[in-house]
């Protein structure tokens, strides 16, 4: 399957700092989603941005989408230790095809 790329692969920050994760893809998309995975759990949906949207906010999360560059970023502001998790972008290029990024492991230190 065609896998998207995320960077950085790992990010370590202090509480209160902002965390930015980037995701790039190669196909045309209908929407792009960001998910979180706590250790040993399934993916939890965070936010969805459609291909005709450029920016979306949800609480401390801000997602941008640049379809010309085929990239998206997830910003977590004022991070907390509880934000420690892996974060994945997921693309929907068609009704029955999902492509996911490799993930960014975020560690937020108290």
């Amino acid at each position, binding site marked *: 399957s065609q896998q998207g790329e995320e960077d950085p692969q790992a990010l370590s920050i202090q509480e209160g700092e902002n965390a930015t994760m980037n995701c790039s893809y190669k196909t045309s998309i209908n929407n792009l*989603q960001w*998910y979180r*995975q706590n*250790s*040993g*759990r*399934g*993916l*939890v*949906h965070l936010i*969805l941005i459609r291909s005709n949207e450029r920016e979306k906010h949800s609480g401390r999360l801000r997602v941008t989408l640049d379809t010309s560059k085929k990239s998206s970023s997830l910003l977590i502001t004022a991070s907390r230790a509880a934000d420690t998790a*892996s974060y*994945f972008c*997921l693309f929907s290029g068609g*009704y*029955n*095809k*999902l492509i*996911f990024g*490799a*993930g960014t*492991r975020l560690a937020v230190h108290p």
Partner: protein
Amino acid sequence: SAVISQKPSRDICQRGTSLTIQCQVDSQVTMMFWYRQQPGQSLTLIATANQGSEATYESGFVIDKFPISRPNLTFSTLTVSNMSPEDSSIYLCSSTNAGTGYGYTFGSGTRLTVV
């Protein structure tokens, strides 16, 4: 990373019937999950399939409606019971090995239409 074979890829079913979806992983994995993606919506986690014990269901999903089996570390099934048109969705299984942080694999999905 593991490769998952999911079947059927699609089905059209009559309301009131049940459909069992299978996922076979090509290697042993510690975690398997089942998701639903309704039309135009994002993925929703249905449950975690636990090997040798009852699945752990998320809020809004119950065992009577979505019984899950996981007899070993490479195989799981999800049954959608007593189907109604509202159950028309894509159903996906996924797997990961706990502790890797990523390396998360999805099945190709089952597109279910209930008529």
